[in-house]
Each structure stands twice: as C-alpha cells, then as structure tokens.
C-alpha cells in the first residue's frame, strides 16, 4: 500500500535549521544591545544645538558641528571623484574592453583592491597624493607648501580611491545583469553601441548602480583609518570654508586645501585622548549616534532604490 501520510524524518535538516536560528538570534541580540546602548546614551545629545555648534572647553562640552560639516564635505568631494570615474570605468570594462589577458588582470585587481585594508589606502594617499602629487605640484607651480600637506582634497581623493573598486564592482554587476538578448534586440534594430548602452543597458542597470554606489559611499563616509594622516584635525575652531567673491557678492565655498574635523576621527579622539572621560562620554555616544544615523540614511536610500527596482521588475514579469 502506498504510504504517504507518514512524515519523512529529516533530522539533519532539523538540527541545521535550529542551529542557524539560534545563531541568528544571538546576532540580532548583539546588534540590538549595541544600537540600544548607543541610542540610549546618545539620545540626550541628539538635538539641533549639538549638531550645529562647535566643541568647547577642550571638547568636554559643546557640539560636533564642524565634524559633521567635515564629514559631509569630504564625502561630497569623494563622490565627485569616485562615482563618475568608477561608473565610466565599469562601463568601459564591461561594454567596450575586449576580453583579453590584460582586462582580466584588471578585473581581478579591482576585485582584490576592494578587499585591501583601509589603512593601506591611507598610506597610499599620504605617499601618492600628498608627497608625490602635492609636493610635485608645489614644485612646479612654485606655491611653497600649499598642495603638499594634509588637507580635505587629498583625504577625499584617498577615500575616492578606497571606494572606487566597490563602485566599479557593483556597477559591473548591474551592467552584467542586463540580458544579452536586450542588447541584441537593440543592435538588431540598427542602434549603435552607445545608443544601446544609453537607452537599453543603463536604464536597466541604473537602480543597481545607484544602490551599489550609495553603499560604497556610506562605507567611505564611515572610514577612519585612511584619513588619520590626511588632514583630519583634532580640533579646529573654524570650518574649512572660504568666501568666494565676485564683486560684492560672496558665497562661502568648501576650501579643499584646509584641514577639517571628521566624525569618525572625532569619535576616535574622544575615546582615546579624552581629558575628562566623564564629560566626553555622552558627546562620544552622541557623535556615534549621528554617524550611524548618517550612514543609516544612506543605506535606507539604497534600500528604497532597490525596492523600487524590484517592483519595476515584478510588474513587468
């Protein structure tokens, strides 16, 4: 007789699933504890005044305005360097470059670069941007010591180099996910390569590119190690801003040649070189909360893009 009512015993599967479940709960618990601690300790500082004002009394009071500004400024310039370069490099690698020995080496190199520890990028930035490019520029332009010192520009450039491989890799993935049949359809209708990329490939890859890029940026914005010796300052009374004047009209602009305060570095300083831990501890938690909120906002944006992309695909399937 056919017996289909008796349950098949899958003991291995049962054990496996429950171990995974237990591990998952431990992980979730750790995460909640960590975030909860930061939120509770930092909440008192989560206000407009803290966000906009400068540190005072040797950082034992006041806000973290300059550090937030510095972080945003560095990130902004990093985006200008890294995103166009990364996206276009990926388009070139995926769409134009032939599959040769050299392009394979480049692909492998890009993948490996994405895993290099960030301190190495910091040393690279110091050696390449400040000492080689900066000092070189100073020598050629006879500007004394203008370019050849740590500043916002080189910190941004170094972070750009750090996130570049990540941008390239995620863009490559997004481009690769566009089916060949869609490209064939476009070529078959007499489109040129660039038209095909512009009207068929990029529109489909765009959400993927955006998601990957935003995640890369949020990674860059939270890095501390690479900017340690690239211009992040312990304390600066003024923002790295200079007025650019045309006649009587003056607009404040980010001055990339100055040093800057930086959230992640600020937290590091507060944690390691505090003059009075009992007073700096709340500031440290507040700063952490704000840094986490910033990266969280970036990640949320990425998630929204991905969600909308899925919806678009779901509707069309």
């Amino acid at each position: 007789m056919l017996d289909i009512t008796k349950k098949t015993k899958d003991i291995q599967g049962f054990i496996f699933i429950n171990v995974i479940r237990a591990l998952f709960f431990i992980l979730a618990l750790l995460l909640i504890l960590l975030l909860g601690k930061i939120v509770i300790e930092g909440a008192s500082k989560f206000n407009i005044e803290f966000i906009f004002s400068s540190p005072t009394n040797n950082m034992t009071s006041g806000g973290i305005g300059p550090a937030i500004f510095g972080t945003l400024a560095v990130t902004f310039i990093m985006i200008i360097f890294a995103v166009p370069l990364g996206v276009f490099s990926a388009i070139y690698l995926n769409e134009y470059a032939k599959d040769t020995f050299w392009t394979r080496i480049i692909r492998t190199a890009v993948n490996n670069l994405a895993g290099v520890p960030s301190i190495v990028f910091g040393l690279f930035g110091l050696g390449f941007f400040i000492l080689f490019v900066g000092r070189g520029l100073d020598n050629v332009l006879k500007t004394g010591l203008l370019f050849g010192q740590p500043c916002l520009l080189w910190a941004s450039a170094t972070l750009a180099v750090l996130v570049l491989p990540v941008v390239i890799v995620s863009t490559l993935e997004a481009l690769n996910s566009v089916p060949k049949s869609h490209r064939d359809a476009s070529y078959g209708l007499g489109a040129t390569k660039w038209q095909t990329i512009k009207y068929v490939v990029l529109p489909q890859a765009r959400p993927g590119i955006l998601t990957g890029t935003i995640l890369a940026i949020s990674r860059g914005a939270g890095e501390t190690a690479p900017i340690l010796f690239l211009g992040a300052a312990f304390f600066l009374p003024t923002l790295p801003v200079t007025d650019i004047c045309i006649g009587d009209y003056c607009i404040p602009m980010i001055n990339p040649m100055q040093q800057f305060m930086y959230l992640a570095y600020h937290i590091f300083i507060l944690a390691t070189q505090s003059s009075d831990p009992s007073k700096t501890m709340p500031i440290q938690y507040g700063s952490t909360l704000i840094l986490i909120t910033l990266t969280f906002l970036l990640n949320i944006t990425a998630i929204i893009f991905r969600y909308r992309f899925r919806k678009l695909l779901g509707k069309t399937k």
Partner: protein
Amino acid sequence: MKETKILTKDLNLYYGQKQALKQIAIDIPANKVTAFIGPSGCGKSTFLRVLNRMNDLIDNVKITGEVLIEDVNIYEKNIDVVNLRKKIGMVFQKSNLFPKTIYENLVYGPKINGIRNKKVLDEIVERTLTQAALLDEVKDRLNDPGLSLSGGQQQRLCIARALAVEPEIILMDEPASALDPISTAKIEELIHELKSKYTIVIVTHNMQQAARVSDQTAFFYLGELIEYDKTTKIFTNPAKKQTEDYVTGRFG
C-alpha cells in the same frame, strides 16, 4: 521571374578554431519566404546572423567569402553595420522585448533613427501593430509594460517592432518555437501577409511550418548547405538522401 535579394559565395565561418559554416552558396529571392531547416547545431542561427552581421558582436569569429545583398558585399570595409541592420530586421527565438511599455518598444527603432515627432511615431505604432495583426488586442493598453502581454503577443510585438524601422529583409530565428498552436498560426499568417513587401528568411524546427509558410527551403547539416530548392520539391521529391531522411523524420 525572380529577383535575387541575398547571395552568398564560398561563405565560411569559424568560431575560434571551430568551423561552423562550410562553403555556403545560396541565392535568396526577394519577396519570398525562405526557410532554413536542419538538426540542432548545424549552423542555421549562425548563418542567419551572418546576414545582418550580428556575429560582429561575438569575439573570435572569423568569416571568409562574400555576402551580397542587392549586389553589395556587406562584409566590405566601407559598409556601415548600423545602417545595414536597419535594412535587415531580426526576430529572435525568444521574445526579447525591452522592459518598457508597448509603445516605447515600438518607437525604439524610429527614435534612434532620429524621429521625434509624436504624430509620426503614433502613425508608425498604428501601422506596425496593424501589420502584425495586434492592434485590436493592444490598442487600449499601449502604455502597459510590453512584458505584460502573453507569449504569443510578445513575439508578434517583436515582429511589429522590427517592422517599425522599415526593413527590406526580415530574419526570423524560430519565431514560433515557444508558442501555442494558435499563436503559431497567427504568426504564420502574418509571415504570409508580410511577404509581398518584405524578403523573409525563417529558421524553423517544425517541418510542417516550413512546408506551410515557405517558398524556398534550405537544408543544413553540420555546417554545410546540403540542398536548397523550392519547398514543394524539398518536401516531396528531394534530390539528396540526407534531406529525405530529415524531412521524413528518419534521421539517425
């Protein structure tokens, strides 16, 4: 009296070291339907792609010999591939609509040709949908995603899309292989309608289909053109034993 549209001479194609087409010489008439038949892997799709230079997109392909379309060798250096492909439309085995609306799919070709005028584009949409016998089914939903159509409708939309750039030749690679009998019948009917204006080359695995829609049939085997003749001749009285075995289904 028939006029030659496509003529190939001594055509060889290599994928790397591997020869996929051997000494193909064929003479495809204008305003007729020519069917390519043959077992899987014999080079039908490869040959079809030779005719609009889609193989240019694949690395490591080497082609020797001549392909003349209206007496012009399309593998000559001064040939503009993009313009060539506008003249020679292609419909693929699996429908490959863009993830865009029905309307956008249809105007894609005209738009990349620089047509921006909305009225002209609307006319093209209406004309091609009528030609593809799809107008009644989709006229109220032109702004729906193309991929929301049924499989058969999608494939007919692909044909309509190909017609939108006003080609002279239409290459179809097993256009009905994934479709139900009714959709297949519609596509065959469509092919029949189109042949007065276009030269059609169709690859098919379906013998009945080849017999029904085509005027000429070419039988390929292992990269060679074994026999090429009037469809009635190929199916009733083929000259070669291999052809006979294949069309009667006695193939080893």
